[in-house]
């Protein structure tokens, strides 16, 4: 049977990917960020999950507002790297675990999650800007992904409670897959930032650290918070951390945070946390 071996929460700021592509690992401005991901990369290299289940959002790249899903699950064997205006990043196409993804689709739809199913579409930095901090790209990706795209752009967004519940049923879906697979769940987004309006540039380090504590110790409390509170505390765009709740909901209730890093250089608080 497939097994969830742990979870990762991570920012997905596009500049993370650009810093990687430009080889800024030792640039003093970026070094603290790269250092923060090292324990996660090491954990992945040692624990060798067969699949990373990625909860992230597309940034009006592949999905446009004429047809916009709340939760869209990818079921392809392969995903191209999307062009976001600078041409695709120079990294390999992603390998999808299609049989697991299709099993998850069946299980979640049966449990009354109204998924959109997608295939043969390219994926944007929401997935692969954090991925290159954690997984080698050469000679190729070490294993496969299953992408879940979440609407955090066009309101109404799914409620935090719905995200947490989706995680809980995702666990059931994965654990009922007959093949022996090791799966890690990745929740992306945040932490605090606001890119628009007079409050653009807003951050809230106090809330960020509280969030990093609650996602470990009391995710149910986060699940009960209305989305408006996330927007007020973490900024309009910072509310995307509800995607961490999907990851947290999929972990065993007794899972614990074993690593955390936080870096706030520019407009978005960049964080990574590892749960086991």
């Amino acid at each position: 049977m497939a097994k969830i071996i742990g979870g990762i929460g991570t920012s997905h700021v596009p500049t993370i990917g650009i810093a990687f592509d430009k080889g800024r690992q030792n640039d003093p401005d970026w070094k603290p960020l790269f250092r923060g991901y090292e324990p996660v990369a090491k954990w992945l290299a040692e624990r060798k999950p067969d699949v990373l289940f990625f909860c992230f959002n597309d940034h009006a790249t592949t999905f446009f507002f004429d047809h916009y899903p709340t939760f869209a699950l990818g079921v392809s064997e392969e995903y191209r790297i999307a062009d976001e205006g600078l041409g695709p990043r120079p990294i390999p196409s992603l390998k999808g675990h299609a049989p697991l993804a299709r099993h998850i689709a069946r299980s979640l739809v049966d449990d009354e999650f109204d998924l959109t199913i997608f295939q043969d579409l390219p994926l944007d930095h929401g997935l692969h800007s954090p991925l290159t901090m954690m997984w080698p790209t050469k000679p190729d990706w070490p294993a496969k992904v299953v992408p879940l795209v979440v609407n955090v752009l066009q309101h109404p967004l799914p409620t935090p409670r719905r995200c947490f519940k989706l995680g809980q049923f995702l666990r059931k879906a994965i654990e009922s897959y007959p093949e022996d697979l090791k799966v890690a769940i990745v929740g992306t987004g945040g932490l605090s930032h606001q890119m628009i309006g007079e409050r653009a540039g807003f951050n809230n380090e106090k809330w960020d650290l509280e969030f990093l504590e609650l996602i470990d110790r009391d995710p149910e409390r986060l699940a009960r918070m209305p989305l408006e509170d996330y927007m007020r505390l973490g900024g309009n765009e910072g509310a995307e951390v509800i995607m961490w709740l999907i990851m947290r909901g999929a972990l065993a209730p007794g899972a614990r945070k074993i690593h955390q890093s936080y870096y706030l250089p520019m407009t978005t608080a960049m964080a990574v946390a590892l749960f086991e």
Partner: protein
Amino acid sequence: MKYVFDLETSARALRLNRFLHSLTVASKRKLFLERPEEAMQGLSETEKDMVRHLDWKALQDYGASFFCLEKLARTKGVSNPEMVAAFRGEGLEEFLKTRRVPGAR
């Protein structure tokens, strides 16, 4: 103004956002860079004017999604901190003074 990208905003600015979104296609970017007026056919005069002047604040207030604006910004070589500064009504240098690591962009 709350700047929540809701269904009303989305409907109001759909044509503009569709244009911005189309810049994810390399051939559309090329056309826009070489013959912008041709690429902007179908936009209203107001919309064209905001794009011509890269008037980030006006585009935002009109209903452009930040994530669609990012496509225009990448195409024109503009960074996110420049856009954020414009939304705040500041210049880039002024904005960077408020940041902890101004080089990290």
